[in-house]
């Protein structure tokens, strides 16, 4: 009986579930335009995992870093959701810098109706 998969699977689910929360909070409190900083932070955690003392700590750091990097690319989408009124907007949000400009890339799945690009999320 190998518990590694179960434990790490549960941990990754926890990390992703927490991602839902902190992406919403980060967009609200800081702003999605800082997404590249978050991406860098995630990459840093991934790099740290290389120097972990053992397998388990390395994998935990790696999963955390991977989900942080995912959250970073999710931030522009969160900005879009706030634009459309699905989430609360910060009172000072109108004065902040933005990720999405113009109408060309305003929608993550492209500007035409339908499914859009297969890889879009």
């Amino acid at each position, binding site marked *: 009986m190998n518990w590694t998969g179960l434990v790490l699977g549960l941990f990754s*689910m926890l990390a992703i579930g927490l991602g839902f929360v902190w992406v919403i909070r980060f967009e609200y409190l800081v702003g999605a335009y800082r997404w590249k900083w978050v991406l860098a932070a995630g990459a840093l955690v991934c790099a740290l995992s290389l120097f972990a003392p053992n397998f388990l700590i390395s994998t935990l750091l790696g*999963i955390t870093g991977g989900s942080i990097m995912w959250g970073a690319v999710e931030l522009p989408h969160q900005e879009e959701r706030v634009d459309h009124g699905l989430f609360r907007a910060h009172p000072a949000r109108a004065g902040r810098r933005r990720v999405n400009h113009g109408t060309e890339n305003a929608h993550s799945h492209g500007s035409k*109706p339908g499914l859009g690009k297969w890889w879009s999320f």
Partner: protein
Amino acid sequence: MLFGLQIQVAGLLLAGVTFLTVWWGHVLVRIVHYYMGTRPAPALFLAGLLSLLATTQTANDLLAAIGGIVGLTLMWDAFELHRQEKRVRQGHAPLNPRVHHQAAGIAAATLAQSDDSDDGENLCLSCGSDAGNRFLCRRGPYCKVKQWEHYSAGSPVDAGSA
């Protein structure tokens, strides 16, 4: 070995696996729900469960970790198919009338109830947005209701004050 340190590659590998699984999980939910609706949800859940159970029988820790992450993500995606159904009914995700019969019926009923004579101006036929309700729209800039020029670089966004 690097500068006398033992390098753990497993973490970096699992970071990539986590990132790709979450990404392709999103893609899977979008595409599967568009073409098949929520029907494959139990199959997805079972596939995830089987993958998770299979990891308990492997001797390789790295393989077990990958299987665990993929398995639990698949189980999550089974529930996500039902959340996607909700998004389609609210007009946030694309509707496939050949698959999403109920959602299409709801959308048609909503359209029939609204007595707008000038549909082109006040009601988006794709997302159902009108002057009072703004939904995520799959028509993008073609949606006349959403006033997409609000989001252009020059003008400040009114999302906070709306």
